[in-house]
């Protein structure tokens, strides 16, 4: 064996060892293994969040509030959409997760009836599996809405969903594909209010900038945009009132595991008590318009709110 060959073997060996070390590092860093690893240390609470900027801000607020009150927190943010993380919450791998009452209730129980914020909150508590509970809901809500432009609303004197019957021109709806078949979608508008929808245009960015642009440009007349979206304010959009409860109320609420004791629950309830819709819109605006990171937004708000 000559030296060149030996050198190459040594190189391959080094790469292999490096790869094994790196991969084992990955294995122990698996975000969803944390539940078992942390079970010995009952003080560490795993806080998760959806892959949605606003949800991450709320999760960061929970995490920082818990830390300020002496808890150790493991952040597992931006896990995905509900279908991805719900099994992990149900399996108890995440201890604190910011959720939305109505949407979570519908995900757990397809036949759930709607109602007021309180009714939905109570129903959600009953629908959650063993070992999970919801704490107090915040006043802040971030829910689906039928949104129109200010001009369109003025032209036809629109205030709530029923007033859409004033509209004489054909209306096109835009939103994610699933909106077409959702219980509050175009079909419900026709069945509940007798409003004719001329067409459906898929815009797959969940009420994001493309949907807002389509609405402002007049390519679509009705869009599904979340009520805490700062774009509503900055683009003079109107989220139509929903007096009959077509949409489920979606108040922000922490879903917690049994590892969250009374002291931690008090901390989270104190946060929820201070979290109003106006606050949530402002927080979202700091992310969307000022491009600030979630941890900075959360820290600034906690300092300003002075609840601890």
């Amino acid at each position, binding site marked *: 064996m000559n030296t060149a060959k030996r050198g190459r073997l040594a190189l391959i060996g080094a790469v292999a060892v490096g790869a094994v070390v790196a991969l084992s590092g990955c294995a122990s860093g698996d975000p969803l293994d944390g539940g078992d690893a942390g079970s010995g240390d009952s003080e560490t609470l795993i806080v998760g969040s959806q892959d949605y900027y606003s949800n991450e801000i709320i999760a960061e607020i929970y995490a920082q509030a818990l830390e300020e009150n002496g808890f150790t927190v493991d952040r597992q943010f931006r896990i995905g959409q509900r*279908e991805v993380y719900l099994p992990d919450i149900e399996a108890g791998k995440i201890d604190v997760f910011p959720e939305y009452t109505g949407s979570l209730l519908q995900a757990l129980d397809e036949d759930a009836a709607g109602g007021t914020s309180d009714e939905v909150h109570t129903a959600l508590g009953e629908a959650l599996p063993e070992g999970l509970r919801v704490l107090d809901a915040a006043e802040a809500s971030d829910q689906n809405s039928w949104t129109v432009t200010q001009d369109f609303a003025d032209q036809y004197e629109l205030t709530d969903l029923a007033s859409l019957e004033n509209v004489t021109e054909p209306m096109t709806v835009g939103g994610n594909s699933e909106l*077409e078949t959702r219980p509050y979608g175009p079909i419900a508008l026709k069945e509940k209010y007798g409003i004719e929808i001329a067409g459906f*245009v*898929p815009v*797959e960015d969940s009420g994001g*900038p*493309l949907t807002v642009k389509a609405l402002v440009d007049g*390519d679509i007349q009705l869009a599904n945009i979340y009520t805490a979206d700062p774009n509503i304010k900055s683009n003079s959009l109107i989220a139509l009132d929903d007096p009959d409860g077509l949409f489920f109320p979606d108040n922000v609420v922490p879903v917690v595991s049994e590892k969250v004791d009374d002291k931690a629950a008090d901390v989270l309830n104190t946060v929820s008590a201070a979290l109003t819709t106006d606050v949530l819109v402002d927080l979202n605006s700091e992310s969307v318009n000022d491009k600030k990171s979630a941890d900075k937004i959360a820290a600034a708000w906690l300092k300003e709110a002075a609840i601890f």
Partner: protein
Amino acid sequence: MNFFLDAIAWIFDPANYAEPGGIVSRLLEHLLFTFVTLVFASVIAIPLGYLIGHTGRGRGFAIAGAGGLRALPTLGLLTLVALWVGIGLEAPYVALTILAIPPILAGAYTGFEAIERGTIDAARAVGMSEGQIVAKVEVPLGLPLLIGGIRSATLQVVATATLAAYVADFGLGRYLFAGLKTRDYAEMLGGSILVILLALVLEGIFALVQRLVVPRGVIAGRPEDVRARPIRSRAATGTPVTEGRSS
């Protein structure tokens, strides 16, 4: 794990052929979108590629430029264009045309470059004008490589054209987006299988075309590859024996 069987069942479910938005019309939309995109890309890339291939100028620019275009993430580009021109088919057409340009451009100029210089010199020597050289020598001889470029562009476009459904009610991508969000995985996989089938059919057609466009003169003039067969048997060419050492 019967997703695959569910997807096959979804494809053959007559309910999914009900118009509007049935499988047949989605397939045709997808094909139309792919075809129009390829026409746009060809109109831009082929003349440019021929110019580069014939003159030999700007080759470095073309390679770098085309490489850069290839690296553009199509969904990001589509979103960017859509934020500018609004929703509808314009943004997907722009994004996918940019995706299709690099392989066609490469096919056009490499087709010219692969021609033996002696052939072109001969054409010039018998008095052909530059225009005649391009039209009668370079274009026919470069055609197989150009078709190869279009073939690879077609494959990319037909697969990526699902993104048209991101901002428009168009094409097979509708099944993918709708299935994903409503967790209807049979619909999603069924839509994907249709895209794959379409891609395979187009691949087959192009493979055939690529063979047919080789000029007859080129086939007739191909020298038989005599080196493919060994002239002598291997046993006659051994290595000299070195005695007294074992290796």
